[in-house]
């Protein structure tokens, strides 16, 4: 696997996906995956797309359960979407193994049917997302899984389809080489969770294990409102906040103070703040200000 910063060069925010995209979402924790999928599903419903979610190993109700628990779930009417067939959650067994074995051609045809159906139902297109862990289970024909991904990719590359696909790969389940091969099939690259903020000077992305923010660019006077807003959205969610500073080229005193003051939540609760991969320049600033020993602060130098 490439590092997060390397893979970012060819990764795209879920919120920016368009018809014709066939992206993969490699993840290693459920918080990140759920946040990404919630965006994918809710964007689709908001834009009038039909959303087909192929779950693997968990019942459709369980998928619906965690979708409903995401922070902005109250903005989405899942009951209405299910009732009116805007959202369909299928178990992998029924999606992939209708014929009793994994047959790439059949599945491609099946997805074609879903797309036609979606258009007949007056949707403007289809959003498809599949959990990709089944291929490891030794089901009949699952050795042809890579072939299936290639076929899908070929369709997206050669035909102007009103569809987009997001393939979820739990990286903990795959060997490194087979994962690299599967990810490489997706010429569009990887999908990533939407940034919280990006103004060209400072980019703020969510991070999940442990929860917090990854910051990239410059933190100075002009970036404080955005940073303060992003920290506030994390406010009450966690007792340990991880701020990854590996991508920060410059941070001024006021910016650093804002990060450190996240040790107290908006409601006055005390939290631990872990600064991760702190560049030397920020370590120097911490020392100069006499802040390196603040209670509740952990500094991991980069």
């Amino acid at each position, binding site marked *: 696997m490439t590092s997060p910063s390397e893979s970012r060069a060819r990764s795209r925010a879920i919120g920016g996906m368009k018809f014709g995209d066939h992206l993969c979402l490699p993840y290693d924790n459920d918080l990140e995956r759920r946040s990404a999928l919630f965006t994918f599903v809710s964007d689709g419903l908001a834009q009038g797309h039909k959303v087909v979610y192929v779950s693997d190993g968990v019942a459709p109700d369980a998928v619906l359960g965690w979708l409903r628990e995401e922070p902005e779930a109250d903005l989405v009417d899942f009951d209405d979407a299910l009732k009116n067939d805007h959202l369909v959650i299928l178990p992998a067994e029924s999606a992939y193994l209708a014929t009793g074995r994994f047959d790439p051609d059949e599945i491609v045809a099946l997805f074609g049917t879903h797309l036609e159906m979606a258009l007949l139902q007056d949707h403007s297109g289809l959003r498809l997302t599949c959990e990709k862990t089944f291929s490891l289970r030794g089901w009949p024909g699952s050795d042809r899984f890579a072939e299936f991904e290639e076929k899908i990719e070929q369709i997206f590359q050669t035909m102007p389809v009103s569809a987009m696909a997001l393939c979820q790969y739990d990286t903990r389940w795959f060997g490194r080489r087979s994962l690299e091969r599967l990810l490489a099939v997706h010429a569009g690259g990887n999908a990533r969770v939407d940034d919280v903020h990006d103004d060209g000077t400072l980019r703020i992305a969510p991070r999940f294990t442990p929860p917090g923010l990854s910051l990239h660019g410059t933190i100075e006077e002009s970036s404080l409102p955005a940073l303060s807003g992003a920290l506030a959205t994390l406010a009450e969610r966690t007792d340990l906040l991880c701020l990854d500073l590996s991508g920060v080229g*410059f941070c*001024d*005193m*006021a910016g650093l103070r804002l990060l450190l*003051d996240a040790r107290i939540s908006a409601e006055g609760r005390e939290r631990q703040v872990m600064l991760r991969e702190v560049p030397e*320049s920020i370590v120097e600033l911490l020392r*100069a*200000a*006499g802040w390196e020993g603040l209670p509740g602060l952990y500094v991991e130098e980069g």
Partner: protein
Amino acid sequence: MPMIGTGTELLVHREFGYDRDEDFLEAGALFLGTRVDAGETLVVISAADRFAALAERVPWPLQCLDAREWFDTPARTLSALVGLGREKWWPAGGVRVLAEPVWDGRSPAEIREWKRYEALINVVFAGTPTRMLCAYDRRTVSSGVLDAARRTHQGEHYTDPVRFSAECDRAPLAAPADPIASRGFRRGDLAALRDFTGREAAGLGLTRTFPLVLAVNEVATNIIKHGSGVGSLWVWSDGEQVVCDLIDHEFLLDDPFLGFVPPDPSRTGDAGMWAVRKLCDFVEIRTGSTGTLFRLRVRL
């Protein structure tokens, strides 16, 4: 003025002059040897060749610090004293310090700042269980330094640190030396100002530009946010140091000890100028009817 001590303890800060090394050792040993509390830490900050002779004369262990390293810059020395005091000395029962500051090899401007440092000790350590005795070798130290010592230490000639510091500020600053690179700045210019500072400082031969860039950014941010909003920066060198002058033609300061009083270590209060003073080697500030000048100096 915020104090770092409890206020229930009394700072002792005295000086003595000597003409013979034997007199230094005798007075120093007497001071250290009159330790009143077993928890009191005994500290010697002097030339390293004094340590052994003092240790022979004092029956308790001494913590010895080499003055050449210790008296690096006024702000860093103050910060180091405060750090050790808070973490080790004061909680254990106080500290007794025999100190001999370094005066030779310093420029007139540096000597002025070290005199001010002695006055600041009275402010910063007020109310802490600190007893400090400063030694002056009359054979080598100038009369100006000796006069100042009498006014910055407790005794007959003790002068209010605010007044003493204001007198230090009356000395004119050196005129900038050519070539001077200058540019104005206002809101939105900080990134360009940082690039400019780093480039010009490197051009003048500074290898590690980051601390200076950071300090310039901090002062410029203050001018933009709390000052008139518009300032100018001059970057030049006197051959020994790279100098950055930041000028706000309207803003006037009213804090005589700006950036010298250590922030509370358990809170992220306003530590901006405290950090600026530590990031640079010397910071000179002049405020008057024509605005305020912040002069940041970093050794080459």
